[in-house]
């Protein structure tokens, strides 16, 4: 198969690799950036797209107050369990894509009410995070969390429930925004839009899946994790017509017909792009993503490779334009400060920040980008940073303002700061001396150092990547 990829930027700088590790993961330490820089940009992208299968997690195992995590039973530990993977995994893109897919297939424990199922779904998303989307769709369609979340387990041939059928088309795979036609340069077409009849026929086809509440409560571990089963007597075996195709379709046919729908590839490509680049994809990128996706039989890697090689991905290195989602901010903050999961504080802090993993606000996921930011959440980003920097700063010794800023940025893995911000940080360091000097004692030097780090991390530049 001949895939088509954008030409890489001709002379990538260190900032290119920082951008790559920020948006295709959860930031990189100075050493990690250097490691990827030594590969060259093309190989660095390929490296991220080729998950390690051994020694995936590096560093100490997560704890809460010294004890092992209990993700199923203990409040917040589901969140910590995943955060830990984001912090420690060598497969950074896999974790970031797992988060993106959690947003795309937004399923909330608010409606599922079963943490076991949520963790199972999380493993499913991770397994296919840079893999085959058609496989993922098939499996998530009958995933116990999804069957509860969108009423698949309550749908039967007598009363087909359209919830999943509608959302799998509208939100997960096909889209219904007429603007997509121009945004995808006609690759997505309004003419091919699914209809209410398609939804109803798909809902009929999806029937047959049941949920055994007794096994969910009292079964073996495997049964509690997945108490769903297929019972043909609940399935509508009649003929249905979906997207113009007629047959005695069942749930697997629905998945197959959806990924074959002409609007699917452009919709998915457009959606995936938006997680990495806030400006719309240009025609060439759309063509390459859609072409590669179809040619590969619905593989995600050839789509992601287009995005991660594309000049637009590296277009705003001097003025980042993507807001760090709260989960990304916390996981990256832990990496920047060299910390691991040792406390449950991150769970309620993320709640304050407005993004708790496993609890998207509704089936359309989190509103991304600037929507994450308001006065409440901005304060919460700051408060979280207070926790991130807790007891991490020692007396740096005597420093000029410039040295203090340089040391502070290095200590937190060089978050992006604009020239203007950099000048203001130096000014702060100088003002600190004029207000509290002329000589600074050990506390003052430590305080000044800590504040510079906080301003770099939780100031306006630090919320962007």
């Amino acid at each position, binding site marked *: 198969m001949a895939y088509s990829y954008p030409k890489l930027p001709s002379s990538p700088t260190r900032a290119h690799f920082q951008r790559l590790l920020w948006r295709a993961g959860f930031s990189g330490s100075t050493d990690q950036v250097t490691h990827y820089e030594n590969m060259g940009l093309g190989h660095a992208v390929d490296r991220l797209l080729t998950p390690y299968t051994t020694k995936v997690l590096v560093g100490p195992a997560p704890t809460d107050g010294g004890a092992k995590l209990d993700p199923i039973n203990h409040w917040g530990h589901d969140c910590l369990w995943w955060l830990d993977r984001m912090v420690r995994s060598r497969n950074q893109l896999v974790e970031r894509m797992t988060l993106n897919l959690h947003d795309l297939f937004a399923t909330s424990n608010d409606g599922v009410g079963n943490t076991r199922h949520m963790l199972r779904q999380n493993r499913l998303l991770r397994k296919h995070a840079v893999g085959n989307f058609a496989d993922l769709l098939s499996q998530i369609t009958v995933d116990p969390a999804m069957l509860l979340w969108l009423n698949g387990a309550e749908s039967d041939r007598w009363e087909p429930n359209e919830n999943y059928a509608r959302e799998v088309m509208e939100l997960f795979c096909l889209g219904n925004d007429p603007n997509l036609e121009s945004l995808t340069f006609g690759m997505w077409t309004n003419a091919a839009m699914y209809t209410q009849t398609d939804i109803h026929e798909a809902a009929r086809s999806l029937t047959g899946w049941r949920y055994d509440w007794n096994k969910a409560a009292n079964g073996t571990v495997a049964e509690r994790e997945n108490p769903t089963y297929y019972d043909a007597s609940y399935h509508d075996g009649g003929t249905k017509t979906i997207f113009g195709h007629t047959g005695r379709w069942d749930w697997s046919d629905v998945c197959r017909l959806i990924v074959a729908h002409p609007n699917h590839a452009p919709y998915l490509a457009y959606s995936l792009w938006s997680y990495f680049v806030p400006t719309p994809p240009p025609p060439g990128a759309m063509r390459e993503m859609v072409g590669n996706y179809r040619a590969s039989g619905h593989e995600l890697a050839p789509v992601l490779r287009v995005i991660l090689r594309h000049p637009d991905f590296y277009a705003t290195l001097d003025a980042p334009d993507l807001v760090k989602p709260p989960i990304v901010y916390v996981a990256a903050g832990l990496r920047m400060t060299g910390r691991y999961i040792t406390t449950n504080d991150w769970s309620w802090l993320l709640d304050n920040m407005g993004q*708790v993993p496993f609890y998207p606000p509704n089936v359309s996921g989190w509103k991304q980008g600037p929507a994450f930011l308001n006065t409440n959440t901005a304060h919460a980003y700051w408060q979280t940073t207070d926790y991130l920097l807790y007891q991490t700063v020692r007396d740096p010794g005597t420093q000029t303002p410039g040295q203090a800023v340089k040391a502070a940025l290095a200590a937190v893995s060089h978050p992006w700061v604009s020239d203007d911000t950099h000048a203001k940080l130096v000014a702060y360091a100088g003002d600190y001396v004029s207000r509290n000097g002329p000589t600074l004692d050990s506390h003052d030097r430590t305080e000044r150092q800590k*504040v510079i780090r906080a301003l770099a991390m939780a100031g306006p530049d630090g919320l*962007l990547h």
Partner: protein
Amino acid sequence: MNHCGCNDWQVTQRRALLRRQGQVVPIPRAVLEGESAGMCRRDFLRNGAIAFLTVYGAQMVSWNRIWEVAAAQAATPATDPIIVSIFLDGGNDGLNTLVPITGSDAAAYAAKRPNIGLQPQSCLPLAGPAATPDWAWNPAATGFQQLYDAGKMAVIPAVDYMPPDLSHFHSRAFWQAGELDPDPDTGWLGRWVDQNGAADNPLQAVSAGWSLDGSLKSAGNPVAVLSSVDDAQFTMDTVWQDPQLMVNALSGLTQRSAANAAMAAADQSIGGAVNVANRLGSLTQPTLPPSGLGYGTTDFDRRMANLAWMLDSNLGMRVACISFDDGWDFHDDQVNRQAQNLTRLSTTLAAFQADLESRGLADRVITLVWSEFGRRVEDNSSGGGGTDHGAGGLAMVVGTHAKAGLAGEFPGIADSDLDQWGNLKVPTDYRQIYTALLANWMGTDPAAVIPNAGSFTPLDLVA
């Protein structure tokens, strides 16, 4: 979907609520408070790590708008009545708070409570305008004695719903909802806000804690969580030499022309948050808690004192909810632990009342103190003595307009008086408190707030 009342479900539902910062109401379930595996609420409070400044409403209201409204409110002298609701989480033992000391109840009390029974002579008498020889306070409840003797407290000795469920979770949800619905969309005070409040002032209904009290959940009009002004401030651990320079520098970073929409959002949100902090900070003139009124130094004292100060700031607040910061679920070692709580609660309550009086607000505020249920009459011997969940808890209404004395019947605790499980046969429905406060204190129609309000005859609580 058919959920059972298992732990996973409770934790899940609670978590779902916690998530809903500043998002669209209605919020589905009244499960904010409570103890369960891993729910470290007290730790949050003790660490001072409390949620702050969170607005819940049908739509987001800008802080500028909120403060415009608040400023307008503050400009006009307020006379409207106010309800403050204090929740004792865990099921306070009423019988060891207010002890029967005469007649068959005193004898039954001594017989049924060999482990935790209090000696009548050590208890505190009920004197003042509503003096009664039949009851005495737990020796630790000095603040209750002070309020009662001053004629500022009505006590409802046995209040619950029928049939009693004995579940923390259900009982709390029912009390907060004002109806026997374990899955309520709104709380009773939230519905009052929907009926009688404003569309643009979330400070009209405030949870003085770390998240929204279920009683305040509204369907339309906004309500807020505001634990204290301090919590809106931009602080950082160990930064005490020059925190103002830090805040100024943070604000300064946002003052530029943004290069793109994301940067503009970052600049505006941080700049706005600093602005909110500064505005709130500029209001913080007094030292809280004020000295000389009897406040202690705990987080509960701080939150209560903040509440009094905010009421004084005339921000349009009409209803406020606050939870005591320690639990009351004493299955064992009850005597010592309850005494500690009663000392703190009653002292702070008396200090709060004194605070309101010193601010000239006392005639506008009634404070309701409630717990989700009472305890089993017969005690157990666990860890020196404790009690299991029971029916018929004790509630109190405090204020210069509280009708001093006991309200509602006491069903008695002799064997023949109790139900088959040894619990009080509850004579008073908790909604009889609500209808009384809504009609006779707030002056609003209870029928608009409490389902079947007509069947809950208001108790005589308001003077």
